[in-house]
C-alpha cells in the first residue's frame, strides 16, 4: 500500500466501507506516513464541517411565498 493507494481509498475508509484487510493495510501505512495521516484527518474534518454547517439562510419572504404558492396551486387543483 503506497500513498496513492491510500488517497484513492480515503473516502471509503472514513465512511467505514472497506473490508478489514484493506483497513489494516491503510492503518499500517498511516503509522509510517505523516502526510497520509494529515490527509485523512483533514478529509474527515472537511466532511464534518460541511455536515455541521448551515450555509443557507432561509429568509421569511421565501417561506411566505412558498406557502402562498402552495395555497394557490391547491386551490387551482381543486377546480
Amino acid at each position, binding site marked *: 500500500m503506497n500513498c*496513492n493507494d491510500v*488517497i*484513492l481509498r*480515503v*473516502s*471509503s475508509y472514513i465512511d467505514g466501507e472497506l473490508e478489514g484487510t484493506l483497513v489494516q493495510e491503510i492503518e499500517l501505512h498511516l503509522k509510517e506516513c505523516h*502526510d*497520509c495521516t*494529515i*490527509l485523512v484527518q*483533514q*478529509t474527515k*474534518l*472537511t*466532511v464534518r*464541517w*460541511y*455536515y455541521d*454547517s*448551515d*450555509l*443557507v439562510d*432561509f429568509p*421569511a419572504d*421565501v*417561506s411566505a*411565498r*412558498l*406557502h*402562498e*404558492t*402552495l*395555497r394557490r*396551486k*391547491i*386551490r387551482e*387543483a*381543486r377546480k
Partner: protein
Amino acid sequence: MYCATLATRGIEPGLLANLAETLTLSTPNPHRLPSRVAREDEHLLVTAAKSGDVSAFEELVNRYERKIFRLTMNITRNREDAEDAMQDAFMKAYSHLDKFQEDSRFYTWLVRIAANEALMRLRKRRPNQVSLDEPIEGEDDFIPQQIQDWGPSPEQRYAQTEMRDILRSVIDELAPDFRVVFVLRDVEGLSTEETAEAVGISEAAVKSRLLRARLKLRQKLGRHFRQDGTQ
C-alpha cells in the same frame, strides 16, 4: 398557519394531508411554532396527513421547508432557481402522494424530488457542466501533490461567521457534478444508492465523484487554513 386558512376556505383536508407528506423533511422552521411531534413520528404524521389531518399537514410543512430550500440552494447556487425548485418539488410531491410507499422514508422521497427539480434547473443554466456520464478515468487533478499542516484547529482560529464564509466560498468553487453528489451524500445524508438514484448515475460514479469532491474541498480549504498563511 395557512392550513387553517385553507380549511376555512373550503379546501378538502385530504388534499392538505397530501401536501403534508410532500413536505416531510426534517428541520423545524424557527419562525414557526415548535414541533410537537418528534422526528421519529414522521410516518405517523404522514399517515395522518394522508387521511386529512390538517394539523399534521401543518406540522410537516413547518418541519421541512427550510431543509428543502437548503438542498435546492446548495445544488443550484441561485436563489431564484432554488425557490422555484422548492415550490415545484412540494407541488409535485403533493400531486403524486398516492404513489408514495410508506415503507420508505418520506424525507428521502421528497429529497429525491427536490434534487431532481434543482438539477433540472442547474442543467438548463449550465448545460455543459452537469453530466450524467460516468467519471473520466485518469483525471487525477484531485490527487494532492503537497500536503500541508493546517496548524492549530481552524475552528478556534476563525470566528463562526468567518468559517461559514470560507466553507460557502469553497463549495461554490466546486464543479456542479461534484457539488451535487457531495451535497446529497455529506450534507443531506443520503446513502450512496439514494444519491445514485436521485442524480441518475451509477453507485460507482457516486463514490468516485464523492472522493474527488471531498479531496478538492480539502485542498481548497487548505488555501485558507495552512499554517504559513500563504495562498
